[in-house]
């Protein structure tokens, strides 16, 4: 085994709690198990602190009304109980931690009518950000434009309130909580291969293409099923690819 592969095993042990507990890792005897465990727990709290502070920043801005800061969950027994199961960067772990934060925040005082939408939005951002990413470009590779495919983690949110109208105001100084217009709003949350999370307003065409892009349908089949002409489909796809919501697969 190369030194690089050994380093990868150490990184994985710190990031992946079930692997850290496995005979495969423990049998290597590479490092003091107690110190590795302590450092892994420190890293987990740091890892999720960064994400909670970033993705739940709007709820954080409402803390003086709700009395709850999102990152407080990291020092609660609920999070401690997760430590033996978490895999840093995995979508399942992100989903579990985001749900814990949302549950904690939803139990706080609130006269914020759009709080439920806000928590769904913030949790969706955190979940979308998770997953393996490209750290280094390895060349262009094959880019056959054949089968559009929804990127894992892409989410369409159907909201009761127009959150984009209120989010910037929440981060500015306010004395009364900003009001969100009550109107049905569709938002698309997606992530680029390098980990940048983006949000865009969705419409019927976007919703249809995201739902139907399974990596098996051709452009013509997709256009027919989505009820779009070819030009409209290609324009929609360009926007979705820019956002990181859809990519082209080469089929199987």
């Amino acid at each position, binding site marked *: 085994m*190369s030194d*690089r592969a050994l*380093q990868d095993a150490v990184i994985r042990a710190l990031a992946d709690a079930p692997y850290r507990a496995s005979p495969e890792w423990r049998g290597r005897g*590479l490092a003091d198990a107690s110190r590795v465990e*302590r450092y892994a727990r420190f890293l987990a709290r*740091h890892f999720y602190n960064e994400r909670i502070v970033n993705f739940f920043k709007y709820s954080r801005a409402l803390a003086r009304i709700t009395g709850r800061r999102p990152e407080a969950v990291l020092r609660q027994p609920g999070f401690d109980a997760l430590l033996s199961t978490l895999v840093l*960067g995995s979508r399942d772990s992100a989903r579990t931690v985001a749900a814990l934060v949302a549950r904690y925040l939803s139990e706080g005082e609130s006269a914020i009518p759009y709080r439920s939408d806000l928590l769904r939005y913030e949790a969706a951002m955190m979940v979308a950000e998770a997953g*393996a990413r490209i750290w280094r470009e390895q060349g262009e590779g094959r880019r056959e434009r054949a089968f559009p495919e929804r990127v894992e983690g892409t989410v369409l949110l159907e909201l009761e309130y127009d959150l984009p109208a209120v989010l910037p105001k929440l981060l500015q100084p306010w004395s009364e909580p900003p009001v969100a217009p009550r109107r049905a709003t569709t938002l698309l949350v997606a992530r680029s291969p390098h980990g940048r999370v983006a949000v865009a307003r969705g419409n019927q065409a976007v919703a249809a293409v995201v739902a139907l892009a399974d990596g098996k349908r051709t452009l013509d089949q997709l256009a027919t099923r989505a009820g779009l002409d070819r030009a409209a489909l290609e324009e929609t796809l360009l926007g979705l690819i820019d956002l990181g919501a859809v990519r082209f697969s080469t089929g199987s």
Partner: protein
Amino acid sequence: MSDISVGAFYNPHLGRELAAADGIDHLAMADPPSAGDPWFPQIRERYTLLLHDYLGQLSEPLDERSIQRARSLAQLYRSPWVAEHFQCLHTEDGAYSLNYVFPPLYTEEFLDRFVRNAKALKDRLDQPLVMENIPGFFDVKASQLPEPVWLRRFFEATGVGFLLDLPHVWLEAHYHDLEPERWLAEFPLEHVVELHVAGVEQDADLGGPWIAPAEPSQAMLDFMAHAVGRCPRAKAVTFDAFSPSLAAEVLLRSVERIRRAL
């Protein structure tokens, strides 16, 4: 009076205070300025800015995109040197990442990788490259060389400068029951260009001290004065705190205390 530049990290939430502050010579940039940062134009005009971003881990070669990003940030900041870390924090396939600085194994293979990739990066930059030491909380048995020996060989092979993070040295000494001054003496101090100083605080998970966005203790400042006296090429000391929780008073007071201690 020392002619060493004394500075801190640019914390965007303290933009107003930093734009008006006295007694700070330089600011290190951990992140690019956001498009909506109203203070950055003033900050850029007023201060020497040091590029101290995450450029990539030099266990692998940096790709063209990362190199161009480093070049354009160095140009934006007019940075006198460019900093990276001795870190290997994500797996080669990208599946796992710690999202926190983590040192490589101190082996011949990793030395060869870091020397090769640092030389390649250095050749593509218009500014000198400096590299920062990273603390280990535990030893990995696969390491073959003591960290200071590995670092010395790296600096001698590359001609890269040393960004000496003193709290990192102090923490390693603490967790190995060594005197910090004795452990420091092992490091290749003749290559040091910049030093980092910071506070440490008790961490419940680690059961001991770790780096924190806090004021350096008097003991840490004494350690800094001791170190600077042994780094003949040192040009700058930076208060190493970058966090949304950092208060302006803590940053300003820390810089002032560093300056007095030099």
